[in-house]
Structures are given as C-alpha cells and as structure tokens.
C-alpha cells in the first residue's frame, strides 16, 4: 500500500527555519529512496494563515495519510490541525505544541523554555553569579517569550543584572545594529545572550568593530554550523552554544514513516533536550554540509 505524507513547515525566512527546510528536503529524499511506497510532499508557508491554507490543500489536493507539521505559531494552527486530524489523518506535531492537548498522534518536541534555562544557567555560572549582561530577543512571539522566561528563571536570585533587552528579530542585521547601540550605551558588558545564532553573528561583528572582544562573551542558540565551528575551535568570544536542532523535523519524519512501515504503531511524545555545546562535545553537532 502507498502512503502520502504531507510536511508543512514555515518558509526559510531566517537561519533556523532555513535549517528546517534543508533537513526536511534531505529526509524526504532519503526516505523516498528507502521506501518506494512512501511519497512525501513538503509545503512551506510565510505566515500562519498561509500555513492553514497549506494544511487544507494537503488534505483536499494531495489526499495525505499523515501530516508532519511544524506550526508557525501554536495558537492559530491548533484548529486547522484539528480539522486535518478530524479528516482521519495521522498527525505528527513538531517543536511548537498545539494549545489543545490530545490532537496529535505523535509529538516531537523542542523545548524553548529549556533553551533559555540552559543559556541562563551557563551565564550565571560563568559570571559567578554576578555581572551586567544584555539580551537580544527574537521576533515577539511565544517562542521568544518562553525562551526569555526560562532564561530569567535561571538567573533569578543571582546578581546577574540585565541591562536591557531589545528585539533583534532573529536577524543578523538587527543583531548587529542593536549590539552596536548597546556598546555605545554601556561601558561595561560582561556577557551577551543573543538567544539565536543568527543574532549572535551580528553581535560578534559589532563587538569586533568596537574592539571589545576581551571584555565579554556571547551565548547564542540553535546550533548553526558557523557558531559550532567557533566553539569547536575554542573561540573565547563564543565559548558555548545551546542546541535547538532544526534536524528535529527529520526525526519527526522518520518516526512518522516508521509508523506506517514498521509493524507496531509509533505514538507518543519525543522530547529533544537543549544540551549545552562546548568545546569538548562540539564535534558531534557539526555538519559542514548543512546550509545552517
């Protein structure tokens, strides 16, 4: 019997989603080659509304048997995913959980709260619980919120002082500009939490320009190869990274395919951690061929 699996992901509008796109395409090729009976179709959306459109189209035009969805945003896509589920499709949700429980058959979760917490703990530890830091946030969404929340919890009770937080929209240029302004505004910065590796790249350039590399260190997030390489090489400026792997989409696709080709059903929850990447373990997270 043949199965069609629909994959719905956000369009590659910044580094991390770009990585998601890459891994999805790669998994598609790999799985289709492996299982001739499986057909995978990927659609990308630029907004939550578009993604809801894509879900409808996957059902009505492609007659999918399973859906792997990485929701643009949890709230808006809960109902559209539920409708897909109601039409009898096997549903795998990736990364951002729906706001209603029990819709999905399979949940492959990233953990944004965890990413924030791990980052916060590292900074707290590294600064010995005392110092001035700045935070560059992402696009104002739930993901950003959860990360910041986790971060704040981790540094709570210490003397780590957040000088200011601004949105840098997970974008290099914004990261660069916001950091430039932080550097002219604050005479002393001990650490930067950039939250995302795209932002971190911009921050690095701004710090380099101001010649203040020796004064501070930067913690990004996600696991972009450029940053991991720096970590691997023992860069003082970027001593660690916190993983939030875009490859989770591939994991989810693998598991979904397993559900159809293996004997037993694959159901439940697969939570991926957000481990700290350090000089010692960086090598195992380094994929030089990935675009991310």
């Amino acid at each position: 019997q043949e199965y069609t699996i629909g994959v719905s992901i956000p369009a590659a509008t910044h580094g991390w989603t770009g990585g998601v796109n890459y891994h999805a395409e790669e998994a598609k090729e790999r799985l289709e080659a492996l299982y001739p009976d499986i057909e995978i179709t990927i659609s990308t959306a630029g907004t939550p509304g578009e993604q809801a459109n894509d879900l409808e189209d996957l059902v009505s035009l492609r007659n999918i048997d399973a859906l792997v969805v990485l929701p643009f945003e949890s709230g808006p896509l809960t109902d559209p995913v539920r409708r897909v589920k109601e039409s009898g499709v096997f549903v795998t949700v990736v990364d951002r959980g729906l706001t209603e429980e029990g819709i999905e058959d399979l949940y492959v979760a990233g953990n944004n709260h965890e990413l924030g917490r791990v980052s916060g703990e590292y900074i707290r530890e590294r600064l010995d619980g005392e110092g001035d830091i700045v935070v560059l946030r992402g696009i104002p969404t739930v993901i950003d919120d959860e990360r910041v929340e986790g971060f704040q919890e981790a540094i709570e009770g210490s003397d780590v002082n957040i000088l200011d937080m601004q949105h840098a929209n997970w974008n290099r240029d914004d990261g660069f500009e916001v950091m430039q302004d932080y550097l002219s505004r604050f005479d002393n910065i001990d650490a930067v939490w950039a939250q995302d590796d795209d932002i971190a790249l911009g921050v690095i350039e701004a710090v380099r320009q101001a010649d203040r590399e020796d004064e501070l260190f930067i913690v990004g997030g996600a696991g972009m190869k450029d940053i991991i390489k720096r970590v691997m090489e023992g860069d003082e400026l970027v001593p660690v990274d916190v993983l939030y792997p875009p490859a989770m989409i591939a994991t989810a696709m693998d598991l979904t395919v397993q559900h159809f080709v293996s004997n037993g059903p694959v159901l439940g929850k697969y939570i991926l951690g957000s481990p700290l990447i350090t000089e010692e373990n960086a090598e195992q997270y380094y994929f030089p061929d990935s675009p991310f």
Partner: protein
Amino acid sequence: MSSVMANNKTADKQIAKQKGFAIDLKTWGPFVALVVLALLGVLINPAFLGLDNLSNMLTRSAFIGIIAIGATFVITAGGLDLSVGSMAAFIAGVMIILMNSLVEQFGAGLTTVLFGVGASLLLGLCAGFINGVVTTKGKIEAFIVTLGTMGIYRSLVTYLADGGTLTLDWAVRDIYRPVYYASFLGITIPVWVFLAVAIIGYILLNYTRFGRYCFAIGSNEKVAEYSAIHVDRIKTMTYMLQGVCVALATIIYVPRLGSASGATGVLWELEAIAAVIIGGTMLKGGHGRIWGTVVGAIMLTMIGNILNLTDAISNYLNGTVQGAIIIVAVYLQRASWRKTGP
C-alpha cells in the same frame, strides 16, 4: 451641410464601434486571466477542480477580497492604505481580549460574540477615521500616514499579546467557529459575506454619489473641489469604509485561527493592493472596478493553491513562480485589450 453631419456621424459610429469592442475586452481581461490560470491548475492536477478545493480556495480569498474591496475605494479616490494588515491584527487582538473578558459576564454565548463583532466594526471605523483625518487634515502623504499606523497597530497587538499570541476562549470559539466553517446552500459563510460586500461595494461605487465622488477626486481633486464636493470628507469616508472592510474580514478571520499575534495579517496590505491593481484599478486613482478586484483576489489565492498542487517546483522557488504568474497575468489582460486599439 447636412451631408457633413451625416459623414461625421458615420465616422464617429465606426470609431465608437471599435471602442465598444475594446472596452469589452478591457472589462473582461481579468476574467480571461482567471480562466487561463484555472486551466493551468486543472492541467497540473485534476484535483484542482474538486468541490472541496474550490470551496476552500474561495473561502480563503474572502479575507483579502473583502479588504481589497475597501482598498478599491481608497485607491480610486487617489489614496493608499498600507495599514490594513496590521489593523486586522489589532482588531483581532482587541476582539479576542474583549470576548474572553466578556465570557465571565455573559457566558460563552451569542451575546459575547455579538459584542466582539460590534467592537470590531467600531474599531475598524475609528481606525479608518484616524487614517483619513490625519491624511486629509494634516495634509500628509497617505503613504507616510498609513506606514506609520501600520507600525503602530502592529506593535500595539504585540503589546496586547505581551509578545505572544492572544487566543480565543475555547468555549466562545466553539460557538463562533461556524462563521468560518459552516455552509449555507453549499457555500461557506465567508464566501457569502464576500459576495455581499462585493455587491454592496459595486452599488456604492457605481450607483451612489459617494462612489462617483471617489472617481472625481481620484481623477482631479481640484475639479472635485470646484464642483462643491467635500473632498476631505469623502476621502476620510473611503478610509472609514476600508476600516469597516478590514473589520469584516477580521470577523470571519478570527474563528478560523482563533488567535491573533504580531504575525497576523503580515503583508496583507501588499496583497490587497495587488488584488486591486490586477483587477484593473489604477494606482494613481480615478478609475476603479469592484469585480476586477474580486477576480484579482481570487487569482492571488489561486496562485498559492496551484503551487500546492505539484512538487515539480522547489519550494524555495514558489516566490519566483508567483511573481512571474502575477506579471504575466496582468500582461495578458492588458495586452488582450490593447491589441484591439488603433
């Protein structure tokens, strides 16, 4: 002497006949482009013609369509509104907050929803009024004013949502849900609303003084003023109408996704303006066509739908195909009537 008149008249008639033909194709241009596009869809995948798919597509196009109908008025009267997308997000946000808070008082019933709907319309009206008044009384270019309010509404909704998402109470959502998903006579409610707005818009634009004044103002503000038309008032009214259209679109949007955030309605303004222009309205004002706009909106949705029909094209290239189709579609419809000219 009388033979001269006769001569001239025949000449005129011939010219008129040619013109008549040209105008027909000019009017039908967008429809022709739509049909070509639909054929393309069927060729790529017969599922395109499935009832479900057609219904989904029309229902989707309702948001942009309704907003674009408002934009037709604004643009016809020589204005521009870039704020519609974020206005929609803002209205959706306020609506959700309001309904959520009313649940305690009125329960998750019709009253709550009606309050939400009312607030939405009122908000749209006010937002449009502000755009209009600042543009006309402040004598600031519409581009700047609405670019400003675009930023303002977008950030306000982010603020209201505290950076996250505002989600409608589940109970309310259940009774509100049919507004997007239910059908009447086999046609979904949003499509009915779209149709109603289009018909009202058509009548308003072509059969009332207001519509006529929009044309006159867009064509030449000074002449309009000399004809004792309250230019500022009419222009403000077009923005208010636009606001109401945005509110209507939001009212049928909210039950679909049941939430609002900073990402709601991003780029709707460009889509709406594109729909208007694809439909044959001129960006410089003075000429507007409601049916053209309707077709334009459907065409835009259809392009997205067609791209979902096939895997032949890399997802990364969606934008390329989309852009090319828009340009070619407009070219085809322009060309089809130009050929008949002299």
